[in-house]
């Protein structure tokens, strides 16, 4: 059965067929027919009018990350579409499933430098998993069906469908078929059982096995399979910044975070373990430090869905291709029960050092100024690890990822691979739309907040429950830290003369409060959390607070430092 629809109606009907709840977007000339049709579909699909296209795409990302569904955003041609690019690049490197729909000038005008014509397919090509220009109405349903299929299968990623205005105006016989297969595309490589046997042998014989947990486990919905795997063989585990929350923070095998600002033990042990098992992670340089001195002593097992990640950065001894949801249980069956108590005790020795030198000082500072660490600690106490934590990019991001406690998966959203300042507020908005029953807490810096602060307007309009914790150190703190440590304290262009943030929040119709001193902090956090709806809590932070541990650029993971190097 088919119905006669306009191209615009077909766009919306296709999105509805795919189960889209929200479109995050912004209208303009070349996408106006779709926006016009929206009025007739209001009861089936909701559009959220952001204040900038970047706000739309980061919201779609936040939504996708917490729900596991495909995020959808929409923009007009030219500037509307180019404003999406940062978010597309961010979603690409962090493997977030997105469908971006952009309007394009009418097909007769393509290539004529028409008003608001930009080669969006060309511009977005390096940062999309797939993209397509649609010029005929009858191509719309198939293009959208393919887009969803590609975005969410295999290693997920952003796709873009650029639709000319005449295709939106035209009409077609609408008959929606979900895409379940593209003959040239093999989303899940078939796994080789003998590789799993080899891996099992290595793990069973290992004295010091070490597991690196990445977002692949979350994307594959394989948290339970992962837990069974490490529990059976007693495997100490550390996570990447995108693997946060896949494993409960207080799980006895959870050793902490990897990476430049990860934990002490977790960095050092890369170079002490005898078998390194990477599960759904891609050995980013922020995780490995100097590759020439990374895990050279270890046999490396890499479980990964994307064949292009194998041997890209770290040479593997055994590569297990496939979805970890499928491969982990097979591997677990072949493992022998172990507890590796002695080996885990080695981690704990280093943890004790980090605890004394770094964590206690962050949590219970002896200086007068408030620290980011103590704010995160206090929020943990109040939320019990159940809130969704979203971050922007900078020092606060590292404090939040290191210290926020998690009891549920998909509870942490951050811009990892791209490190996009301005990601936080819109992503938190999208997360709150996706999980209206959860508390969503955003940690954001005074720098990044001002990059997408306009989204407070959207949040006020949707009444999304976003709790903004603005950690204001009056600096582009992370850059300032590098200047302090590696550029002789020459604080070039990192001091910010900031506005009255609470007045701004109130201007957008959002309640807020500023905290300057420690005795006020706990009550202010309580007040924020018990407030109904969005809230901005600004906390004045010690200016020269630094994030440690740190693996300086170019250093090996075993050269992780716990305090500023002595000069």
């Amino acid at each position, binding site marked *: 059965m088919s119905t006669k629809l306009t191209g615009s109606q077909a766009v919306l009907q296709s999105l509805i067929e795919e189960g889209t709840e929200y479109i995050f977007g912004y209208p303009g000339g070349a996408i106006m027919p779709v926006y016009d049709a929206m009025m007739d579909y209001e009861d089936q699909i909701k559009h959220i009018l952001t204040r900038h296209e970047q706000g739309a795409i980061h919201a779609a990302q936040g939504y996708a990350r917490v729900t596991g569904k495909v995020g959808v955003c929409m923009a007009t041609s030219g500037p509307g579409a180019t404003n999406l690019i940062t978010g597309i690049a961010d979603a690409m490197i962090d493997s977030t499933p997105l469908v971006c729909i952009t309007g394009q000038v009418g097909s007769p005008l393509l290539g004529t430098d028409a008003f608001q014509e930009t080669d969006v397919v*060309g511009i977005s090509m390096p940062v999309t998993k797939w993209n397509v*220009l649609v010029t005929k109405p009858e191509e719309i349903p198939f293009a959208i069906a393919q887009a969803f299929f*590609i975005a969410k299968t295999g290693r997920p990623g952003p796709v873009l469908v650029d639709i000319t205005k005449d295709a939106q105006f035209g009409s077609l016989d609408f008959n929606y078929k979900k895409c379940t297969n593209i003959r*040239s595309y*093999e989303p899940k490589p078939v796994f080789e059982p003998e590789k799993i046997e080899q891996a099992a042998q290595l793990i069973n014989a290992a004295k010091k096995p070490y597991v690196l947990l990445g977002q692949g486990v979350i994307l594959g919905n394989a948290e339970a399979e992962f837990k069974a795997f490490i529990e059976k063989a007693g495997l100490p585990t550390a996570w990447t910044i995108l693997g946060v929350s896949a494993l409960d923070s207080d799980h006895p095998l959870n050793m902490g975070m990897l990476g430049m600002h990860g934990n002490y033990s977790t960095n050092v042990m890369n170079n002490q373990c005898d078998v390194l098992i990477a599960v759904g992670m891609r050995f980013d340089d922020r995780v490995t430090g100097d590759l020439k001195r990374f895990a050279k002593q270890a046999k490396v097992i890499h479980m990964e869905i*994307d064949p*292009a990640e194998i041997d890209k950065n770290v040479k593997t001894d055994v590569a297990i291709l496939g979805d970890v949801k499928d491969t982990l249980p097979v591997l677990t069956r072949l493992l022998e029960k172990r507890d590796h108590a002695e080996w885990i005790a080695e981690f704990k020795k280093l943890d004790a050092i980090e605890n004394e030198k770094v964590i206690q000082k962050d949590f219970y500072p002896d200086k007068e100024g408030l620290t980011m660490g103590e704010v995160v600690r206090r929020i943990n106490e109040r939320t019990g690890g159940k809130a969704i934590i979203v971050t922007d990019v900078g020092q606060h991001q590292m404090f939040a990822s290191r210290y926020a406690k998690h009891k549920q998966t998909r509870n942490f959203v951050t811009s990892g691979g791209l490190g996009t300042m301005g990601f936080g507020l819109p992503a938190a908005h999208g997360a709150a739309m996706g999980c209206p029953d959860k508390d969503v807490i955003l940690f954001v810096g005074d720098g990044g907040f001002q990059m997408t602060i306009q989204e407070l307007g959207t949040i006020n309009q949707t009444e999304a429950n976003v709790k903004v914790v603005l950690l204001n150190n009056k600096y582009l703190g992370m850059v300032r830290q590098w200047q302090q440590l590696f550029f002789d304290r020459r604080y070039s262009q990192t001091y910010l003369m900031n506005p009255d943030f609470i007045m701004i929040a109130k201007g957008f119709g959002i309640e807020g409060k500023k905290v300057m001193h420690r005795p006020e902090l706990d009550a202010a956090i309580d007040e924020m959390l018990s407030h109904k709806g969005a809230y901005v809590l600004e906390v004045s932070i010690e200016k020269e607070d630094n994030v440690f541990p740190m693996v300086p650029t170019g250093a090996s993971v075993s050269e992780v430092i716990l305090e500023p190097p002595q000069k």
Partner: protein
Amino acid sequence: MKQTFTITAFSENHIGLLNRITIIFTRRRVNIETLTVSPSAIKGVHKFTIVVNETREMVEKVVKQIDKVVEVIKAFYHTDDEIIFQEIALYKVSTDKLMENNKVETIVRKNAGRIVEVTPKYTVIEKMGTADETQELFDELNQLGAILQFTRSGRIAVTRLSEELLHNFLKKREIWDLDN
């Protein structure tokens, strides 16, 4: 160590695909020596033949990235000893020069060139071979000052294997109707 590799990729015939493939090279600063795109033996399937001078490690990475492109069916890479390859070159020389004495003709014969068209003004010679071979004929004709125009194609290649890599792959994938 860098050496010559021939990358072959089989794909759908999709607008923009060439761009998607070449940006994989440009991003990694890998120079494409030659590139040929043409329909393959299977209806609707296009074949890219790309020659690069690179390390095996880099070529492996590039090929995996090409393979990852949604519309690419499968990509392979080969060293020169694993394939039979040819390029074609066309040489336009002045007919006067050809008639002057037998020098041009001797060179053409020695190099196994073939005359494809003769007009009063110019003569077109064709030669198939490796880039070195077509270059040799060019150099010799050029020394006589005989060349008016010269052009050379990219490489095309077939493997020395007895089984067909793509065919095997498609059979494994099952969803292909190979008879269409």
